[in-house]
């Protein structure tokens, strides 16, 4: 064969070998696990709110032990509703992963809430919703001659970010400051951690059946548990109607965030008894006489009795005085008094010391005995009293 032809053949063979080498060097790391993702990075991903954009960041480590750089690695997301209409698109930044290195990259889902229409946004924030999304990962490899893109679709549950908005009308109370009259209505809600510190507006509106309205606007900083008090100014007439139970008033708290709103409302009834509307700090006061017992070691004698009550939220954390006294036909035989912190659920057991005579009477006699429980908080006095005969007689 002639030399130029041999040379041409050699060039062709060399070229094909080069291409084959490129192909083999590209495929080999994939087969041997030289290219991989490590999702167990030390940094935890998190959700943040940047203006109106929710960003979910997921740090990953991309290991490229291959022979070629991975270029233009990009992760993008398309969010859709159930009908497949595109609601929002999020496109990550392009990144390069050099060969032979591990590179920490952050995959970011960015969802601008203002890209969503108001109804979808409102559902997302206050009710939570499922959104379909397509994730697309694309990258170039083998000297940019191979482009891989993987698309995966799935559902993703979002929110609710703000929930349990509750107007606690049963804890509402009135105050007088000089000539000014107010009704104080507590309200509460919960917000996702990532919304911490975000400032929102609440408007609490008072309305009675006479058409009187009044409202107060508050700036509220979001936190996982928000407890606020709306102090609504009232006219003297409205105040009077409220206090003598002729107002039939309602109170509504509306929360505004990202051009969406939600509200809760309740009826106010300040004049009558019962409920929290009359300013009682506690409810379900229960002296558990049925489970009471006496105890003696021959020298010391005790009556053991338990009680429980629940506290309206607004009064929780404050102190009340509990007074327990035991009496029989001979008079008061023992008592206990102490301050307790009012939590949602309060339950205590007390050992009331008894004299030998009192113990003997209740143990062996046919005595009528009774126990009285008083809970004092400011001007409030809660009472539960029970009387029995020969409760522990032989």
């Amino acid at each position, binding site marked *: 064969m002639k030399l130029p032809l041999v040379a041409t053949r050699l060039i062709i063979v060399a*070229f094909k070998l080069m291409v084959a080498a490129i*192909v083999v060097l590209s495929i080999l790391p994939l087969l041997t696990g030289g290219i991989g993702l490590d999702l167990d990075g030390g940094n935890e991903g998190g959700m943040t709110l940047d203006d109106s954009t929710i960003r979910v960041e997921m740090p990953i480590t991309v290991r490229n032990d291959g022979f070629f750089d991975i270029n233009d690695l990009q992760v993008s997301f398309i969010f859709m509703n159930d009908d497949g209409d595109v609601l929002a698109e999020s496109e990550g930044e392009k990144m390069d992963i050099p060969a032979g290195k591990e590179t920490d990259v952050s995959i970011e889902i960015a969802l601008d809430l203002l890209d969503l229409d108001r109804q979808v946004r409102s559902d997302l924030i206050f009710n939570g919703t499922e959104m379909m999304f397509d994730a697309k990962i694309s990258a170039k490899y*083998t000297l940019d001659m*191979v482009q*891989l*893109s*993987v698309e*995966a*679709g799935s559902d993703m549950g979002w929110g609710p970010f703000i929930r349990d908005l509750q107007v606690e009308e049963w804890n509402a109370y009135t105050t007088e400051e000089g000539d000014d009259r107010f009704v104080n209505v507590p309200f509460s809600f919960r917000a996702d951690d990532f919304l911490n510190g975000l400032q929102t507006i609440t408007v609490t509106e008072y309305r009675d059946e006479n058409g009187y309205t009044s409202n107060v606007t508050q700036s509220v900083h979001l936190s996982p548990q928000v407890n606020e008090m709306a102090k609504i100014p009232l006219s003297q007439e409205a105040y009077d109607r409220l206090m003598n139970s002729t107002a039939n008033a309602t109170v509504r708290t509306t929360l505004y965030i990202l051009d969406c709103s939600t509200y809760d409302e309740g009826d106010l009834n300040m004049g009558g008894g019962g409920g929290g509307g009359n300013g009682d700090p506690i409810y379900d006061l229960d002296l558990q006489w049925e489970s009471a017992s006496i105890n003696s070691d021959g020298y010391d004698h005790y009556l053991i009795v338990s009680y429980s009550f629940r506290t309206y939220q607004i009064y929780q954390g404050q102190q009340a005085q509990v007074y327990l006294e035991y009496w029989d036909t001979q008079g008061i035989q023992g008592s206990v008094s102490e301050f307790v912190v009012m939590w949602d659920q309060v339950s205590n057991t007390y050992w009331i010391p008894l004299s030998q005579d009192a113990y003997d009477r209740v143990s062996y006699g046919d005595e009528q005995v009774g126990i009285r429980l008083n809970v004092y908080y400011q001007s409030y006095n809660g009472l539960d009293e029970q009387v029995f005969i020969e409760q522990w007689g032989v």
Partner: protein
Amino acid sequence: MNIGEFDKKYFSLAKGSITAAVHALKYLAVPYILFAFGLVALSNQDGPQRVADLLTEMQTLVLIFGIVLTVLGFFKGAYPKGSYSRFLFGITASVLVIVYVFSLLLGGRTEDVIAQEAFELDLYLIFVLFFFPALLAVLMQFGEFADHRRPFLEKDGRIAVKEKEDPEDHRFYHDFRLRYGSLFNGLKLARSTLIGFVVIPLIVIILMKAGFSSLNVEEVDSMMSNLDDISTYMVMLGVPMAALAFFKGFYPKGSVSRFVPAVAMVLVTLYWIWVLGLGGQFVFDSIEEISINLDFSKLLLLVMVGTALWIVYYVLELLLYRPEWKDAGFPKDLRTKESRKQRKLRKAEAMVAAEKKKAEEEKVASEVPQNPAEDVTTPVQESKEP
């Protein structure tokens, strides 16, 4: 038939031994050893007895056919190309190869055992694919006989040696004359092209489809459909490529008639690569909710550039071999092994002829008038004369 061509004066023990050795290796030793390895592996792994029985039976067939083909190969190689004796042994051997392969199917038992042990594989379809190149191998014996008959007879002195063609009378389109072609070379190249571009890819596809079918998974349905499409393309492109390969091999190096199908073949090969490479796009979306798209079109184009370089090769081949072919009087490319002595002699003859021609031209030039103007015009006028 001239029985005299079986005479021992044509017989070459050395050449016969070489061909017999090649046949023995191809049809006896390699298959026998492969089956023996299969049996050993099977016994080591306590494999099924029916497979062992099958392999033993095949080994027996290999022994029988292998020995016969070795003997036939010996006689085929011993007689010279173009002789009836070589033709007879050659064609018998090539037909027997078809029977040999068919007998290995064992009347469908091989297929049944494979189906029971692995997956359902259409061995008869694979045999049909094998049949076409095997048929070309039979035709190659005819081709070899036709190509070498005249040189054989010339060498034997039974016919006069054919005179060389005058290069001055030859135009480029004369390159397409059938008499310049070698049937054997054409059929051989067509056969290898058919095997490389149709038979092997189709067998791979048949094996892949059989494997995928055995998985019984819906996700591979679209891939199976793709394989069917690729099969169709392989046949649609492979058969014309084999036809082009025939003409490329048929005509000698340095001829336009070889260059044209060679370049056409490269172009079809480029398209073949593009089709087989799925146009550089691999889309896998059989798994629910996940779609994988691999765009390797640039890499595929690089492969195609490598293949396209063959066009440069064929251009060079045309330019480099054409003067040689012309000087040799446009002979057939019979690829006979020319000894160094013969080659030197041929070159020396060519040089002498060239010098003689040059001397004649110089002589003619010295006889023309001294006036340059007349020198230019007169021959032209003369050439226009009837």
